[in-house]
């Protein structure tokens, strides 16, 4: 059984977790070009090595960040998302756009 440590619930079976994609820096959504936005949406870092990823502990719906090696599957560490994201991002639609 593969174990992942949830920052909220402690070590649990990996089957209780859902993978949520790599952690990526969000471009400024108000001023970004279509191509750059497409890159943000569709492209991920593809090197072999340690990657930063979003994971969720499914029974408690708790989202957190994991550092994992994408070839050995070793989970280096996990921590709550607020260690990386200090600020809330609010999406506001532009005036006149629908």
């Amino acid at each position, binding site marked *: *059984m*593969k174990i992942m440590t949830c920052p909220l619930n402690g070590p649990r079976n*990996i*089957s209780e977790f*859902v*993978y949520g994609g790599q952690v990526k820096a969000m471009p400024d959504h108000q001023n970004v070009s*279509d*191509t750059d936005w*497409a*890159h943000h949406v*569709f*492209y*991920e870092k*593809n*090197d*072999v090595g340690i990657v930063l*990823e979003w994971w969720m502990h499914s029974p408690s719906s708790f989202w957190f960040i994991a550092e994992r090696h*994408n*070839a*050995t*599957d070793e989970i280096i560490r996990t921590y709550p998302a607020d260690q990386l994201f200090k600020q809330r991002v609010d999406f506001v639609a532009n005036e006149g756009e629908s």
Partner: protein
Amino acid sequence: MPFGLLKYGISNDYPFEKEADLPLPTELKRQYDVVIIGGGGHGVATAYYLAKYHGITNVAVLEKGYLGGGNTARNTAVIRSNYLTPEGVKFYSESVKLYENLSNEFDFNIMYSQRGQLTLAHTDATVRAFRQRAEVNKHFGGGTELIDPRDVAELVPTLNLNPANLPVLAGLWHKDGATARHDAVAWGYARGATQCGVELHQVTEVTDVLVSNGRVTGVKTTRGDVNAGVVIQAVAGHSALMAQKAGFPLPLVAYPLQAMVTLPVKPFLTPLVSSSALHCYVQQTSRGEMVIGGGSDPYPLYNSRASLPLKEGLISSAVEMFPFLSEMRLLRQWAGITDMTSDYSPIMGLSPVENYYIDAGWGTWGFKATPICGKTMAELVASGGKVPELIQPFELARFDRFKQVNEMGATAASH
């Protein structure tokens, strides 16, 4: 000829040595017109069509392991064209047509066996989606129809019609569905290509791609540098890593895909059977083994390791479909690395680097596309970079324009 046989019986000469299927390895030259990275089905198929139909024979296929030893050997050998999008159906049905005649074309038996493929629907939503797939297929030339549970029971009498308490509501019956010996496909293409003068270099890893002024000039290999006018990458699971060597990213995520086979039993199952809700498919090979396959792993990994939870899940689904399978013994299990695109369609054609062509994003649908992929990639090279109409929808640039080909008929896609 009995007398011929007798002659060999008393002679010391082994009769087939002089006509070996593949020529012995040669020196790697410093210059080729075309270098193909990856000696799997797609790579050698491209070389074959280039040499045989376009007269381009100064071609080297560079393979880091051995011929057809990657995903060509790891797929579950399903051939079908019952996809959802018009682009996908047109493309894959051309591939099925080429497969039908491949043994004759090679004069080499690929054990192509057209048994039909049956996908089961367990919800109303899936029945609706299947009806659409059947109509799209009929329109674009594939043989697919929606059938009711009675017909399903007639086609596959051994099937449990209520697997995991998910009653079978309908079936998508694809009579063109087939299987073949996957190794033989690679061998047939490699033999045909080398007979025309193509060089296949195994145990020759490409370590870097040489680009100058936005144009590819050659590759670095473990056996020295090679200059090339055109370079094609066809490296399946490691596509994104190879493209990075050429200097651009690909919108791919690598997931392991696991499968297994049981010990052989007498033939009892003709069609290839797949359940949309259980994410599991079962088929019997011509040798009698039961092949069990399903969806990709739940998270990305550049590793073809196997995991017990996924194997247990696959087996429990297979046993729900055919309960007597629980009595059988597993023979082998394995995994391959699939390069998944977000729209479940491949990435083919031009790249940001001039004369560097890509054949990637083959996820869980690469084997069935081998012939048409080789044919269209060869056309692309022979025409000097004019993308054939059939593969235009699969260009890399579609991601920048939000013009994805949403292929929800792929096995890995949820229905």
